[in-house]
Every structure is written in C-alpha cells, then in structure tokens.
C-alpha cells in the first residue's frame, strides 16, 4: 500500500461521506421548510371548513374529502385485481411467453408517465365510456397507476411463502385454490398490505391524471355522486400556488395544504415500512 493510494482513499471516502450527508440535508430541508411554514396555519377549522373568498381564506375540507374518495375508489378496483393478478402470476402461470408478456406489460405500466395515464383516462373514461369529468373517471385512472405497485408487492409476498407449505397441503388432497386460500395467502397478507399502502401514498399525491379527468379548480359544494367533479389536495395545492390574483397573500394556505398532503402521503409510506420491517424480523426468527 503506497502513501498515494492511502491518500487517494482518504480523499475519496471523504467525498463519498459528504455526498451522503448532502442528500440527507436536502431531504431534511424540504421537510422542515414545509413543516415549519405549514404548521402555523394548521387548525381544526383549516381541516374542516370550505374555502372562502375565492380560496384566499377558509379551509381545505373538500380537497381532503376528494382525496379520500379517490383513495377508496381506486383501491376498491386496483386491490382485488392486483392481488388476483399476482396469484395468477405466482401460483398458476407457467414460465413461458404468456408470463413474460404479462410481466413486461406490468413493467411498462409502472414506467408510463402519469400525464399519459391522464390522457388515456380522458380518452377512455371521460369521452368513450361517457363518464364525463368525474370522480369515477379519475378513480379508475388512478387505479390503473396503482395496479403495477400492488401486483409487484403481492408477488414478492407470495414468493416468500415456502414451497413446502404448498406441497404439504396438496399432498393432503386439498385442491389448488383451497391451498392458496387457506395456506399460501395468510402468510402473504402482510406483504400485500404493505404494497397496498405504498400504492395509496402514490394515489393520494398524483396530480396530472386527475387534472385531466375530473378535478375541479373550485366547487362550492361537495361531490354528491361518482359522476360529480371534485376537489383534491394535490390539484388544490397546484392551483393555489400557481393561479389566482394573490399568490403571495395565500402562501400560508399553500404551505398548509402542502403539509397536510405530505403528512397523509408520508404516513402511509411510514406505516408500510414499519409493517415490512416488523414481518421481516418475524420471518427471520
């Protein structure tokens, strides 16, 4: 080991450490900026009141409600479909062309830009199926985006179930579906929940797809059916941060909205991480 090599190593390792710290600092700055500035406006009224005076005062209740509706609607579709698809891929599909095509399709769905999903939702749900700009058109569009996340997580969960479980059950004369339902699925459920929660976080934060398929700038009333337009947190943040006459004056509301959105999305992510960690530990013991 020459002196030069040792010196090089010292320099390189310092640079590596600085880079890692830099990334950590970026994350902390973003979180602090939003939290500190958004915290002051947070109150029960902010969360439960309608916006007033052209959205320069009042709360964000309809936007929160809209986001909750979107989560329920999109997950209601994507969750069963995603889990069934994962069961097919892991337990039934033989390696070969069909399985390969399905997996490539999933990879491409996961990598398709959100605005392209928005265009598709507009062409298919809003126009072709005639739902109009509506809650259901947006929820279905978001469901398609959530699908690859749920399928992947469910597949990973199914893979971790030991083969012996399946053989033992099948050897007892239990049919394949009963084996899956009673032996394979129960240990895989935590992993599937994790994937679902990650997908919820994604759905709650998406803006471009709902902007094209049904989110409204401002509505004086709450949506009364699945064919109504709606307000939602991410679109609301975009609108009040970029449009309107008094952007600087409504800055506190903008920060407040950003903080509420960030809190919802990150708490879903955090829950997912905690469940995953809990069950990994359990699996190891």
């Amino acid at each position, binding site marked *: *080991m020459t002196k030069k090599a040792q010196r*090089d*190593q010292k320099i*390189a*390792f310092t*640079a*590596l*450490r600085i*880079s*890692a710290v*830099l*990334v950590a600092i970026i994350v902390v700055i973003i*979180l602090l*900026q939003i939290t500190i500035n958004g915290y002051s406006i947070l109150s029960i009224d902010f969360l439960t009141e309608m916006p007033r005076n052209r959205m320069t005062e009042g709360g964000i209740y309809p936007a929160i409600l809209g986001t909750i509706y979107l989560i329920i609607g999109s997950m209601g579709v994507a969750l069963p479909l995603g889990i*069934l*698809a994962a*069961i*097919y*891929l892991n337990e*039934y*599909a033989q390696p070969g062309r*069909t399985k390969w095509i399905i997996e*490539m*399709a999933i*990879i*491409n*769905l*996961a*990598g*398709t*830009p*959100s*605005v*392209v*999903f*928005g*265009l*598709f939702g*507009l*062409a*298919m749900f809003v126009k072709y199926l005639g739902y109009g700009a509506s809650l259901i058109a947006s929820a279905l569009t978001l469901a398609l985006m959530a699908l690859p996340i749920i*399928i992947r997580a469910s597949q990973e969960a199914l893979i971790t179930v030991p083969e012996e479980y399946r053989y033992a059950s099948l050897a007892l004369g239990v*049919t*394949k*579906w009963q084996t899956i339902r009673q032996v394979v699925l129960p240990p895989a459920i935590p992993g599937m929940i994790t994937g679902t929660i990650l997908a919820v976080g994604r759905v709650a*934060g*998406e*803006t*471009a797809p709902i*902007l*094209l398929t049904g989110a409204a700038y401002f509505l004086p009333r709450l949506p009364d059916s699945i064919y109504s337009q709606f307000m939602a947190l*991410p679109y609301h*943040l*975009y609108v009040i*941060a*970029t449009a309107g006459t008094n952007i600087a004056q409504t800055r506190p509301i903008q920060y407040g909205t950003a903080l509420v959105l*960030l809190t919802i*999305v990150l708490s879903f*992510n955090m829950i997912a*991480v905690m469940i995953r960690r809990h069950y990994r530990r359990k699996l190891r013991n």
Partner: protein
Amino acid sequence: MTTGHYREKVIESLLYLSGVTAVIILFLICIFLFKDGLALFQKYPLVEFLTGTKWYPTSEPHQFGLLPLLFGSMIVTFGAIVLSVPLGIVVAIYISELAGAKEAEVLKPLIEILAGIPSVVYGFFGLVVLVPLLQNTFDLPTGQNALAGSIMLGIMALPTIISISEDAISSVPRAIKEGSLALGSTEWQTINKVIIPAALSGISAAVMLGIGRAIGETMTVLMVTGNTAVIPGFPEGLFAPVRTMTATVALEMGEVPQGSEHFYALFAIGSVLFITTFITNIIAEYIKRKYRFNLGSGQ
C-alpha cells in the same frame, strides 16, 4: 368431474383474466392514445409536427411543431441526469460499502421519504425556495428556468438511481472483492477498479430508469420551468425558461375544445411520450436481465 373440480376451473380462468389485465390495459392505452394522436395528421402533416420549430397552437394558422417541446424535455432531463447520476451512484456506494449499520438505518428511510414526496410538493418547494434562490444567485430575469427543473427532477430521480445502483453494487460477488483486497489493493482501489466496473451494467439500468422518470415527470417541471415554448440554446438555455412535452399537455388540455386539432396535437405529444418511455423501460429491463445472467454464470 365433480363440482369441486368445476369450481377450480372457474377460479383459474378468473385468475387468468386478472393476470392479463395489465396487458389489456397497456394495449388499450396504445389504442386510445394513438387513435386520437393520429387524428391530428388527417389535417396537419406528420413531417411538420416532427420537424416544426414553432408551437403556436392558438394562432391562425396553427403551428404544432414538436421540436421546442422535445428539446425542452431533453435539456431538463439532461440537466437532471448530470446532477443526479454521479450523486446517486456515490451515495449508493457509500451506503453499500462504507456506511455502518446505524448510518444506513438513517440514510435509507430518508431516501425512501424522498421517493414518497408527491411531485406537486416538489414543484411547490421548487417554486417557493429554489426559483427565487436561482434568480438572486445568477441575477436572472426569472428563476423559473430549465435549471430549476433539472435540479428538482435530479432530486426526484435520486431514490430510483440510488436504490437500483445499490442493488447492483451489493450483488457483486464477495469473492471478487476479497480477491482484490487480498492482492493488496486499498478499499478505495477495490471499489473504484473492481466493484464499480462489475456493477456498471446494473448502474446503467438505473440511469435509463432515471431518464424515463425525468422525461415523464409533469407537475414539478410545470411549476418551475417557466413554460416558454422556444427551442433552448445549449448550454445557456439552462438559464432560460423552457416548456416540456408533459407540461404542455397538462397546461393546455384544460382549455382546448374536445375534437379540435389542438386536442389531437396534445394526444400526439402524449403518444411521443409514451413511445419514448416505453423504449427506455425496455432497454432498462434488458440491461437488468442481461447483467443478472452474467453474474449467474460467473459464480
């Protein structure tokens, strides 16, 4: 044939149907996107769309030139990749080779948070923090420019690049690493001359995915790049406002009458976006599989 057997068959068909949904959806996306995208070319020549240098969708006569938007997307993506790839790889190396268990336990959740922040929140942060900062630092007429987009997209691409590079680095067989150390190399020489080259194809998959992410990102660029549809110069164009393909679709779709030429032009842009990300996804997947195979045969 018992009823039980019959039920099994029904369930299997149901599962099969769910399984192929992803394929059907992708197929439907192609059809609906291309159908409305191609409708533009019944009245507006394809060549002019692909080579036109002006995007004037509302003037008479309309001009739907893709180039300013394409170059807008490219310059922002280029900047994002230049910023995020070296930083991402370096952090991946740090996490997998140098960081202690405790450090990794802090860094990894932070990076997961980075991946979880919605793009509109990044856009908002960029708008209220980064844009004024750039404007003051470089004394520009506006801080809403390509560079602001590149920096924000770079931050957003970091988690993808870090996590895939980390996978690639940690899947380099230990024997190779220990061989290098046993020959008297320093740890850094081992990382630099042995581990990184061995992990390179995996890292390049990360770069491809990062490019795909950056090209397709919408809300952030919409909020911080200024959205002026002119072909940017290089490199000075980094400091000027640009407009990307994604931002154009999101901005203009709300105002166009359905079925107008402008409406179809936005679908044509969507088709270009879809084809571009489709290709980057396929390449990334191909690289990933190939490198897995290489490691398998090397052991």
